């Protein structure tokens, strides 16, 4: 029972990191990033390869993951500079699929569809409850660190400039802001956060494989961020934990209807997730924690 709760919380923390990544690129910079699963994968693979195959210390893994995903973010950002909105969404979705296909087909590099198994954890897996508790503590620490960083960034001049880029690129450029630089920085940072989530996930579950990075996970995170509020770090975090809570709770709801077949219950679960989003959006269109309007700093 307790293990299950701890497990759900770690998964929730991984989702919370991904949600914060999406909040930064989508909510603040206005870059619709459907490539989230791709950066998640790059991070997970970078860390897994380095630690499981390269026998590097485990703590180096997340650093490598952030670096690799950040670089991937820069590449994607610079190759899509002239794209906005729907077009950017399509290209980033394509990027995620490319990552997944490369991971499944370039067997020499990634181990192919077999994936990488037996990735060492941050703590000894044999230590049972201590392993789960310790990993949860690390995951929460990561969530908190990213949360504080984002809050700090949001309040800084950098955050204000980023929001002005989101609202109107031309106006921001006329005001003397280097639009490309702001976009690239935000996108790379967001990608690095997603990479960190990937590293955490891989080291906790001991296994990464291309199948884990299907677009489904991106959709889940979009749900979480939309429900929580897409321009507030707290909104992203709350949304992510609520989503995991909701996904897991629907399993038990299905047991109230024993006359349904397993397939019907599985479908019902998916419907409940959709229904949940509709309810949240009709009651709170801006999410649970909408963006605060900020006063201009006084001089």
């Amino acid at each position, binding site marked *: *029972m*307790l*293990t*299950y709760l701890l*497990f*759900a919380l770690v*998964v929730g923390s991984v989702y919370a990191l991904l949600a914060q990544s999406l909040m930064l690129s989508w909510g603040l910079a206005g870059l619709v990033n459907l490539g989230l699963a791709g950066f998640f994968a790059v991070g997970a693979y970078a860390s897994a390869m380095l630690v499981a195959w390269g026998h590097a210390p485990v703590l180096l893994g997340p650093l490598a993951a952030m670096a690799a995903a950040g670089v991937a973010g820069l590449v994607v950002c610079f190759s899509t500079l002239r794209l906005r909105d729907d077009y950017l969404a399509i290209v980033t979705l394509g990027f995620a699929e490319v990552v997944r*296909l490369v991971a*499944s*087909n370039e*067997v020499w590099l990634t181990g*192919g*569809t*077999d*994936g990488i*198994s*037996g990735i060492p954890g941050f703590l000894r*897996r044999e230590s049972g409850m201590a392993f789960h508790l310790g990993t949860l503590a690390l995951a929460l620490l990561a969530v908190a660190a990213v949360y504080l960083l984002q809050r700090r960034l949001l309040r800084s001049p950098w955050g204000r400039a980023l929001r002005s880029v989101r609202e109107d690129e031309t106006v921001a450029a006329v005001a003397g802001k280097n639009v490309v630089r702001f976009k690239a920085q935000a996108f790379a940072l967001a990608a690095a956060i997603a990479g960190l989530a990937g590293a955490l*996930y891989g080291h906790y*579950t*001991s*296994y990464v*494989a*291309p*199948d*884990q990075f*299907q677009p*489904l*996970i991106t959709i889940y995170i979009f749900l979480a961020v939309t429900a929580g509020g897409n321009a507030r770090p707290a909104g992203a975090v*709350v949304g992510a934990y*609520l989503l995991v*809570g*909701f*996904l*897991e*709770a*629907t*399993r*038990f*709801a299905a*047991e*109230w209807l024993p006359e349904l*077949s*397993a*397939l019907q*219950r*599985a*479908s019902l*679960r*998916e419907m409940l997730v959709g229904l949940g989003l509709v309810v*949240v959006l*009709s*009651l*709170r*269109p801006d999410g*649970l*924690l909408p963006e605060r309007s900020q006063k201009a700093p006084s001089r």
Partner: protein
Amino acid sequence: MTDVSRRHLLGGTVLAAGVLALPGLVRAQQDGPIKLGTLTPLTGSGGSYGPGMAEVVKKAAAEINQAGGVLGRPLSIISEDDQTNPEAGLRAARKLIDIDGVSAIIGTWASSVTTAVAPVCWQAGVLLATVSGADSITRLPHNGFIIRTQPNTSLQGRKFGEFALEVGAKTVAFMSPQTPFTDAQFAELTKVVTAAGGKTTSLIYDDKKTTFRTEVDQVLRGRPDAIVMGGYTTDTAVLIRDLYRANYRGKLLGFAYAVNRQLVEALPADVSEGIYTLSPSAAEGSGGYGRVAKLLGVDAPDTYACQVYDHLNLIALAMAAGGGATGAIVRDHLRKVAQGGGQPVNNAAEGLRMLAAGGKVDYDGASGPCDFTEIGDITDARFRYEQVQGGKITLLKIA
């Protein structure tokens, strides 16, 4: 509508989640029923196989319960959906193990899901019975907690090679999506065919595509006289159609789980005419296959339904033989009821009676003889050779 405050909505959500989870939290453990989980793909790309698997386990368990259960306790089956996704599958497995307290998980289908779920199972001492084929699975350090009834892929590759030669092919092309077993399968196939003086080529395609015209053209340039199809139902249907359109009239060989009745019925009879299929099979007349057919109410159940039926029966028998209901007991006694001589049985109810009477049983199931090696692979598999003739799948032989 926007006058619902954030606090109320948040509170409401948390409350709702809590209420939903309530039945799981208050459920009593111990002495009651013996809990077993099925973790099959009910949605996602395995969604056409999983529902039948979950259903057959449930029905077979009901049969066992009717006959008095195992060790005087009824079996209770909890079905979860792995969504054909390792991430979702792992969450479901955690719930089955930590909340429901199952002693075995039956039916993981995709190799990636099995590999993701396996460590959680062997750490918790839960037996994992799987239908995944990747060679790498039984090589994991699982301490005996994994068994699989699906022949490993090297064996299947070999059988396909031999079958292709048997139908008179010299140049064999292999077309498959990228799966954990593609490479091993092609390597074995090549070994057999080249040994007989033939040659092979392979082409990996993306199974999400809606047409394979370019892939088909590329393969046909090599003028193969047999094509082995390694995909699943959805992509294989597209492939067969495109091969027909490209005027390919050579031999076609596929897995019976891909070229199944659904597929044959969906295609015009002249398109599917003459396709050979191969599937692991029970010995002819062992009776297990017929029992699964009757449980599901169809005349030709797929191999996965047969395999999970065997998983459940083996687990029930092992529990009875070991006198306990934990995963470790199942692991320690499974081979005693699966092989090594004894009265042959093809269902648990009968076997349980024999065990209770102090006899020894040797389970021969719906999917095959179900004898396992040390690492959990099956030792011997018979195969069922069939051919589509006039829009009907016709049995050629079992060997």
